[in-house]
């Protein structure tokens, strides 16, 4: 397999490929370019390809993290910086929690034959279909009046963990099924308890599944807007919420808003390049196995 033979294709085929790549990546590049422009350049009517790149918009957005004084900032608006910290904390904590809890549940469902696989996949599917908009009213009501955790990061994390668990359990199940039971039995013979077997034998073997699950969970928690908007207060707002808040009907500061958008887009873009294979595994598993 090392020497793969590639078919020769006609030029039209490659032209189509190039057109598709431009279409897929073009809007993202345009956002990147706009974020590197001054507003004068954005509004000018001349060609948009040639301009002096500047990081001023990023400086404006991240002003409270700067270790130097940027000359063009008169007043530092800390909203975005705070939101970035919130987003990072919320996304990371909820990813870790979802993975740990989901992993344990998936393991129990597979190894101890709790419920049939059918029950689990039906409930996963049912949960997958629930739109965040449907959770909006009840989660707002319960979080505010009963749990009184509205406006805290913990409250937002709790919803995200619950929202992601069904998918994570279900995808990890399909990986755990493939771990040979003999391996676990051998470990048990050597005197390992159930927790040791799980953490030292099973977990290392399902790393690819964990990676896929982690990326999907992180993506949901990092990108989600609606519930965060309903639950967060001034101090726990996440980046998507601040972006939407700063879009007003008129007079949008395109340079800065594109810079914040770019900052929000960077982590998912990095994941895509690092782990595209795991992402595709996760996606195809979702459809091919139902």
């Amino acid at each position, binding site marked *: 397999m090392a020497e793969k033979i590639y078919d020769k294709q006609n030029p039209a085929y490659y032209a189509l490929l190039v057109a598709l790549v431009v*279409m897929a990546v073009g809007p993202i590049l345009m*956002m990147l370019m706009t974020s590197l422009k001054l507003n004068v350049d954005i509004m000018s009517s001349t060609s948009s390809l040639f301009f002096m790149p500047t990081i001023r918009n990023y400086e404006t957005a991240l002003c409270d993290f700067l270790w130097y004084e940027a000359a063009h900032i008169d007043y530092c608006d800390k909203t975005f910086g705070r939101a970035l910290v919130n987003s990072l904390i919320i996304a990371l904590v909820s990813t870790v929690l979802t993975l740990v809890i989901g992993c344990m549940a998936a393991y129990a469902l597979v190894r*101890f034959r709790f419920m049939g696989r059918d029950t689990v996949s*039906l409930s996963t599917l049912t949960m997958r279909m629930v*739109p965040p908009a449907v959770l909006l009213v009840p*989660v707002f009501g319960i979080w505010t009046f009963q749990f009184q955790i509205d406006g805290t990061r913990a409250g937002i994390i709790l919803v995200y963990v619950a929202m992601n668990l069904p998918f994570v359990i279900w995808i990890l199940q399909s990986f755990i099924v493939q771990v040979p039971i003999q391996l676990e039995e051998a470990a048990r013979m050597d005197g390992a308890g159930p927790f040791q077997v799980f953490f030292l034998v099973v977990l290392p073997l399902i790393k690819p599944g964990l990676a896929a699950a982690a990326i999907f969970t992180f993506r949901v928690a990092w990108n989600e*807007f609606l519930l965060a908007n*309903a639950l967060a207060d001034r101090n726990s707002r996440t980046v998507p919420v601040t972006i939407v808040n700063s879009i007003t009907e008129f007079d949008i500061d*395109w340079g800065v808003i594109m810079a914040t958008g770019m900052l929000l887009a960077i982590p998912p873009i990095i994941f895509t390049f690092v782990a595209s294979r795991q992402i595709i595994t996760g996606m195809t598993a979702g459809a091919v196995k139902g």
Partner: protein
Amino acid sequence: MQTANVNRLTPYLFLAPAAVIMAVALLYPIGYMVYASFLDWNPSQRIGEAEFVGLRNYINLLGDASFRESFWVTMKFAMVVVSLEMFLGVGLALLLDRNIRGMSVLRTLFILPMMIAPIVVGLMWRYMYHPTVGIFNRTLKSMGFDPIPWLSDGNWAFASVVIADVWQWTPFIFILSLAALQSLPQSAMEAAKIDGATGWQQIIHIKLPLMMPVLIVTLLLRLIDAFKVLEVILVLTNGGPGLSTEILSLRISRTASEFRELGEAAAMSNYLLILLMILTFAMFLYNKAVELRAARLRKAAEEDL
């Protein structure tokens, strides 16, 4: 004795955290929503103080012209978007399914639009649709055409929202159908080639029928997701102009936050949920049917031997 106990309890210990969290933060809210849909409730009240009004919210909604309008917009959006994406995605997969260098790079680039936050997708497209500085109108102007009112005219706004969604989600269909294509049995393909089937005949009589199970599941998954789209439209048009792009999810969130009618929003959520439930159930039944059929065929094949 101690260890035996631990062993018996292990499955419950492993399952407990997940069960508790899902019960508290997923099932309970959904039950709560069903209850709230029978109430006349505004956000400043506790739920206990809200008045019980029976089915009034549901009946009001049925008579509400703007709810019916946004239900229709949602259906139209989902249908248009999903059929366009299926057509383009499957078409591209059939076209690009060749053995070429760099296919994995291509797939990686195609996933990008799906991974980026919907909010950001909305932002990018809003910039491109911008009446004066956006690239579309700039290009049109430099070629001497009139600018198009992308987001300020009802019909164009709907089209713009559809275009943005097609950009974001066609890759999903493309990647799934490509995976399906590449796992087709080579023997069938070769047999067809030997029998002298043309490219089109191969596609219509062999590839598409063999891909069908995956395609149908993909279609249903995408359809379910199409009903969940919210952020892109929120950023692009916020439902306007008029109600031309106000899909149900958006209307739910506006009913809750702007009109402060939590009961009505809950009833609306229930309508949406019922619709999605029917779709999901259809998908599950289809999966079961396919499995049964496969099992029957396998059994028949064994009996033949």
